């Protein structure tokens, strides 16, 4: 993946300005930075949900502005709230994800994924009854039912207990092993964050890749999921 001067403006406000970075396939880029710095905007741009106001990005050789659909085909996006329907069950939500991804929904695949994320016993319960942590797990699960080459994770740790966080870390390593490129934005510290090959800090829309030597802890909040203090 290669970002070249990627920029996005909303009205007069530049949410992202001139972001450039190269991410090798199968590696992880971790994005840190204060709220409103542009992490989500960057992820949304790569997910092709937003059109760049300037610059471009290339994912697997496909240009963001020219073949967004090719990129969508290979990308999975785990958003902060998760894209899930309250009145469908966990299994049904995953079925929907598969169909919208152009796949025939297969019960074994859905079952396997539910088991992996620890939701198999509540598979047929409506999402309305789920806790935040369970919803987050399901959101993660949505990335597992489709074959993807790029995984975008926006604050994957938020709302999860330590088991959940461990699950995220495991899934990210599995992604790496499978050669999937991972873009991960996080306030919170975690193994996946620390293991990332590259880390970039976003400040007021500007992306700066941190050199390897810089200690990460300066830029992250330490501590667990519940009400972690904001990043410097």
């Amino acid at each position, binding site marked *: 993946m290669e970002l070249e001067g990627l920029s996005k403006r909303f009205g007069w406000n530049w949410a992202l300005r001139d972001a450039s970075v190269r991410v090798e396939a199968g590696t992880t880029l971790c994005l840190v930075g204060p709220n409103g710095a542009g992490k989500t905007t960057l992820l949304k741009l790569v997910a092709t*949900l937003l*059109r760049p106001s300037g610059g471009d990005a290339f994912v697997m050789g496909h240009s963001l502005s020219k073949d967004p659909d090719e990129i969508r085909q290979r990308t999975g996006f785990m*958003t902060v709230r998760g*894209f899930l329907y*309250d009145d469908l069950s966990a299994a*049904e939500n995953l079925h929907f994800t598969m169909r*919208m991804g*152009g796949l025939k929904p297969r019960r074994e695949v859905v079952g396997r994924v539910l088991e992996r994320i620890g939701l198999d016993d509540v598979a047929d319960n409506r999402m309305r009854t789920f806790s935040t942590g369970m919803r987050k797990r399901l959101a993660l699960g949505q990335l597992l039912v489709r074959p993807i080459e790029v995984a975008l994770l926006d604050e994957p740790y938020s709302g999860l207990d330590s088991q959940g966080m461990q699950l995220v870390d495991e899934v990210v390593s599995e992604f790496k092993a499978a050669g999937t490129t991972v873009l991960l934005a996080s306030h919170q510290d975690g193994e996946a964050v620390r293991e990332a090959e590259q880390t970039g800090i976003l400040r007021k829309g500007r992306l700066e890749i941190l050199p390897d030597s810089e200690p990460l802890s300066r830029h992250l909040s330490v501590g667990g999921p519940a009400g972690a203090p904001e990043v410097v």
Partner: protein
Amino acid sequence: MSVLHRAWAIVWKDLLIEARTKQSFNAMVFFAALVLFIFSFALGPDTELLQRVAGGLLWVGIAFTGLLSLSRTYQNEETSGGLEGLRAYPGDPRAIYLGKLLGNIVLLLLVEAVLIPAAGILFQANLWPHAWGLALVSVLGTIGFSLVGTFYSALTVNLRAREVMLPLLLFPALVPVLLGAVNATTLILEGDLMGEAIVWLRVLGAFDIIFFVICIWIFPIALEE
């Protein structure tokens, strides 16, 4: 064709949710019934008058009800991440339009299936002999309404003043549909001795075809961010 598959996935999802919660359906039926009742009160016991304007009143009810359901079309998506989530999936975004369109049409037709007989009773108009004609007008009119409605809902979904903009944009666009539907219905109920209703049905049909082509063509542009 994967566009149809994905559109179908959306229709299935929306109707499944609707069947479980019955949110929209109930609200719509109640609201429409309210409208019809008020008209009955306003026009009083003059049966002949009621019968003459039955066609018009019915479609006023349907139009307002349809508007209500349109506002909710994308609201459903809102709690689950908004239209964004649907846009993140691969494939032609027109599948979204098709899916939402079909969902709206089905829902509105279901409401009309309750509403039209109710109107028949309230306005003391005998509907049975005209059942086929009425069904045809109903379908064509509903399609026309939903075509433009679904499109403009998507356009205004993120606007601050959505509740005002949607009717404002929709009103001029719906004039042909409403004219056609009301006139066709009224003529049919009166027995349509001169076969004039067919003209209106043609207007509705033409509108449906023209706007289907236009809306589905332009839809991806409406969805860009």
